[in-house]
């Protein structure tokens, strides 16, 4: 009943199912993360706008297309990748000034990432219960410093409990440039299973 099989042959895969995937991902490999996460965006200034009912000075609606950079305050976009189990991985989005090539001269290059003390000292043991650090979307997680002396604050983006902070960023901040997908800032477990509540401070696109 059991026939000795050639160890390298037996299984063959039908590649035609993946032609489309191959086409899309070979241009932008990072897209493969869409198979594991759904992506949304967060920026701190958006929240202020909603809460105080003010219109942000950086968003005039009637300017012509050619706007001078001086009039616009670029938003500090973070990504929020949500796994099917609702855990959220947060990090610096490509649209953030730190990663925008057009802004490199002005912003400088990243020199240091410093995590907040309460984040570094937090106890992460079980599945995120009593002892873990509670976070609000605006809670500061870490600060990124650049060669021009600028500092950017990265925040939790979702309400929940801290599951992990990325210590590799402190030891090797260049990871943000060299391996952006490995340079996530933190992993957070939301307090609810309701996606719309979890992502209430996020938007689906940075446009």
């Amino acid at each position, binding site marked *: *009943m*059991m026939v000795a099989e050639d*160890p*390298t042959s*037996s*299984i063959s*895969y039908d*590649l035609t199912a*993946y032609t489309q*995937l*191959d086409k899309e*991902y*070979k241009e932008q*490999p*990072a897209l*493969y993360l869409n*198979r*594991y996460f759904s992506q949304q965006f967060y920026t701190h200034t958006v929240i202020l706008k909603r809460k105080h009912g003010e219109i942000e000075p950086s968003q005039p609606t009637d300017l012509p297309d050619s706007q001078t950079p001086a009039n616009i305050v670029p938003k500090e976009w973070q990504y929020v990748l949500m*796994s*099917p*189990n*609702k*855990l959220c*991985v947060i990090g610096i989005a490509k649209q953030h000034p730190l990663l925008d090539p057009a802004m490199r001269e002005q912003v400088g290059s990243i020199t240091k990432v410093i995590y907040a003390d309460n984040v570094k000292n937090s106890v*992460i*043991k*079980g*599945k*995120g219960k009593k002892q873990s650090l509670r976070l609000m979307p605006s809670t500061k997680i870490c600060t990124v410093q650049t060669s021009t002396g600028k500092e950017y604050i990265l925040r939790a983006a979702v309400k929940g409990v801290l*599951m*992990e902070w990325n210590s*590799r960023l402190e030891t090797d901040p260049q*990871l943000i440039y060299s*391996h952006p*997908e*490995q*340079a*996530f800032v933190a*992993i957070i*477990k939301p307090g609810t299973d309701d996606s719309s509540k979890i992502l209430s401070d996020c938007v689906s696109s940075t446009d």
Partner: protein
Amino acid sequence: MADTVESAVMAVLQSGNSKYADAGQIKEASEKLYSFGLCALCILRYIQLPIGPSYCVRSADAIYKALGIEAKQDQKPDEESLCVKPCPACLGILDLTVADHIVGQFKAEDYDTMDALVGIELPKSIYIRHRAVQIAGRQQNIPSAAENVPEVKDVFRYLFTQQLSIVCDVKANATNDMRIDIAFSHPETATEHQFLNIRKKEPASNSSDRKNGTFKASADRSKTVVLSDLGACADDEFTKHSTCPPPAIETAAKIDSLIFKRASLFIGGRYLKLERNISQTPFVVEGRRMTELSVAEVIGEPLERLIRCDSYNLVGSGREDADVRMLGDGRPFYIECINPRFKAVTKEQIQDIEDQLTSSNSPVQVRRLQVIPAKDTSIIKEGEEHKTKHYCALVWFSQPLNPDKLVEINTLGKNGILLQQKTPVRVLHRRAPLTRPKRLLNVELSHIEDRFYKVRIESEAGAYIKEFVHGDLGRTTPSLADLAGVTADILELDVEGVSLDFPPTPKDTIV
């Protein structure tokens, strides 16, 4: 029938063990007991007739005749029962229709067992009322009633086991295989024993008094406590709270619970999952099933039909994701069949189920399916942690690899790679956040075409293969992506082998 009872009575008188010297004294005692309203069997009990065939006589008349009782016409019971109103001593439990009914229920289940362990629980008022009869017996000069008499529980057990043997051919004994648990309750007299608690102060409560978050009501003090309280209670104290003989009742005791429980039957084997999107056990999220099929149901349904069990549980030696196939010789598992009615399944009947799944090209198939002894089930869980697994996967790289790079990876892979795996994000919500070192004993990467590669891996149990390929955002190191220097993703995964010898290959099949 009357002569059965008569000869039993004679035998007792002749043995010299009785409190009575002759039939006349028996008649006198019996008539007094009859006037208490006791049923025929309770009368037999209180004249100290030893438990025997006399108790199975189904006619009250025969018993009265044998004892010499002149039953009053208007109080004569009909054919159906041995008393008009339920007996105040046994609460109607010794009525033979009760035992008949339970035996009938048991027969309907059609268990293929030869033995059963019978457990009986009686209402606490039985003990109160027994004491009342005893006191009345002392007061009214019924010598035998005040002594040790056959208890209601023992008589019922006798009646029940006789019927069980006759109707179902089942012996009542101390078996581990089959339990029949009968519990009676009698709401009408449920509080009769409570005066014993009021007499003295409440004993200090202990933690076992708190069940399921609520404190046990004092009505639920255990039988042993009631008996010891009764022992400590003097006759004159007792008569202040309870009439002697015990008062009449309107309703008979009812069966509060009747539980038939058989020891589980275990069926072991190895399962193959030949298609994707099948979970190991039914997977329901927010009321919706995530996969149409589950391994447990495909194998469990035919077994459930054959064995007639209440339910089944599948336990596998490890588990693969729903989108991962299980090939090769399959994964060891056992199914526990809960409360089976039919345990004497033959090898052929089991083989039949295995063959059915194979010949119908079912996406879930089994090998080596067989009944296994309960003790062998521990092999499954032990194997899960210690045995290695073989995998094959379809991998995509963002760029085809340099041939040198391919050789480099395979050279490294031949010697084994030690991974440091943080708990993958996709299970981090239910597993503790740890970094687990896992060894890949062999990694072999081969090119299919363009950016598509096949990787075959032999790994220590518990390694997350998907995370090894793409790196899980840098949280599994080294990853195949790290080794290749490009982005990698895993498109399909198959388990080719789970190396655990289970179940033992049947010796009479050709391997």
